[in-house]
């Protein structure tokens, strides 16, 4: 009950905004193709549920695949960086450079190379997840106190044991901070990929609805995309709470 009460102001504000929106559109007679009313958007969810669902599934698949691949590569690379100064010096600047290219500029290049299928979308989603996770994971793996490393030296622990017993666990709070970012950006990546060249997915539906002045469909698609990102964030946060039961030294 108290948690529900805490959320009451947010719920009330949200409902008021929707109500104002409905009133504004009706009172000022705004044409549907410019701004649809909430009721019209809701009607799309009811009448076009099949179309929305069919386009939702590819985006879900791309976002989740990109999330897994991008983060996995970032974590493995971070582990390599921490164990090899050379690797860090050779590849970190390149990773930074790739990160500075706007994703919207890379997308057409990837579509040209990888074609029109799932591949370019997954790669874009992976790319957008990759960098924050790499940076955080490198920091996390290095966030072991000097004294802890001395303890492991006194115990004559190998690098592998240090990684498996200490570094991975102490990096988890950092990793989850990055995964929470990645859980929402991976959806953005998938949608951007679908914009460039695709006949399916929420991104394609957004383009199609915009060009055909189907504003209620556009709004419904946007809401669906946002819901997917929120769901990803929620799941990641729940997993974090299950995995990290201790009090991390570095809370941020």
């Amino acid at each position: 009950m108290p948690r529900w009460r805490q959320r009451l102001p947010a719920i009330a504000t949200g409902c008021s905004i929707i109500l104002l929106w409905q009133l504004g559109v009706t009172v000022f007679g705004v044409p549907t193709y410019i701004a649809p009313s909430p009721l019209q958007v809701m009607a799309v969810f009811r009448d076009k549920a099949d179309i929305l669902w069919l386009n939702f599934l590819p985006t879900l698949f791309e976002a989740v695949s990109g999330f897994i691949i991008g983060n996995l590569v970032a974590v493995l690379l971070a582990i390599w960086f921490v164990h090899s100064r050379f690797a860090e010096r050779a590849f970190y600047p390149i990773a930074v450079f790739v990160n500075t290219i706007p994703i919207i500029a890379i997308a057409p290049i990837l579509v040209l190379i990888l074609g029109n299928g799932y591949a370019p979308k997954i790669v874009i989603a992976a790319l957008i997840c990759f960098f924050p996770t790499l940076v955080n994971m490198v920091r996390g793996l290095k966030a072991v106190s000097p004294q802890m490393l001395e303890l492991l030296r006194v115990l004559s622990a190998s690098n592998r044991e240090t990684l498996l017993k200490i570094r991975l666990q102490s990096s988890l709070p950092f990793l989850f901070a990055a995964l929470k970012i990645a859980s929402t950006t991976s959806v953005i990546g998938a949608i951007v990929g679908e914009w460039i060249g695709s006949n399916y997915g929420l991104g394609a539906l957004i383009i199609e609805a915009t060009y055909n002045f189907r504003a209620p469909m556009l709004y419904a698609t946007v809401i669906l995309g946002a819901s997917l990102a929120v769901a990803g964030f929620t799941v990641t946060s729940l997993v974090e709470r299950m995995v990290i039961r201790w009090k991390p030294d570095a809370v941020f």
Partner: protein
Amino acid sequence: MTAISVSNLTVRFGQDENVVTALQDVSFEVTDGQLVTMIGPSGCGKSTLLRAIADLAPISEGNIEVFGRTPERARRARDFAFVFQDATLLPWRSALDNVRLPLEVGPRQDSFEIHAEPEELLELVGLAGRETALPHELSGGMQQRVSIARALVCRPRVLLMDEPFGALDEITRDKLNQELLRIWDETGTTIMFVTHSVPEATFLGQRCLVLTDHPGTVRDLYDVDLDPPRHLSMRDTLEFVQITGHLRRLLERN
């Protein structure tokens, strides 16, 4: 039998013009089973000396032997264990699993087989019943007890303690001082104990190694002539006060 033998030890840090000599020509011996405390002004190299014995600091000149082995070989053989000022526990591991850590890492050796039972060690340090507690659920003193139990799990022949109670409040510190004497009595381990506190050095030590600073050299290896068993109330006796007074004078005479 000699547990620790340090002869003509010099430790320097840095290079060329920036060389700092932390320890110069330090020699002493610790007999098996003794509890030796070490005091000296801040920055005199007490910790460096302990860390050199533990193979954590480089030896520039001279020699260290732990039961006849070089520090590196002694470390690999788990001849010694180290207790830091911070408990240095893994925050995601329970007290019991923290005590088990030394059994899970490092080169596997037959000698590990005769390790002490982690449960019994927690009981020895007065933490029976708190096996499943995570470090953040324990007080600072309790965390340090866990770290002492962890140090004892491989039955080390030498326990090197670097200001282990330095960060604790005085009441907790008194209690742990007494318990350390009990643990020492029960395990028979040789202990080298670094401290800032002259009364602590007097209360715990059979002998007290007094260092001077810049660079660190041995002023005296003083025999603390107090009869066992030692109780905290001893600290109010004339004998005790005379010894601490003597040690203080040794420290001041630079």
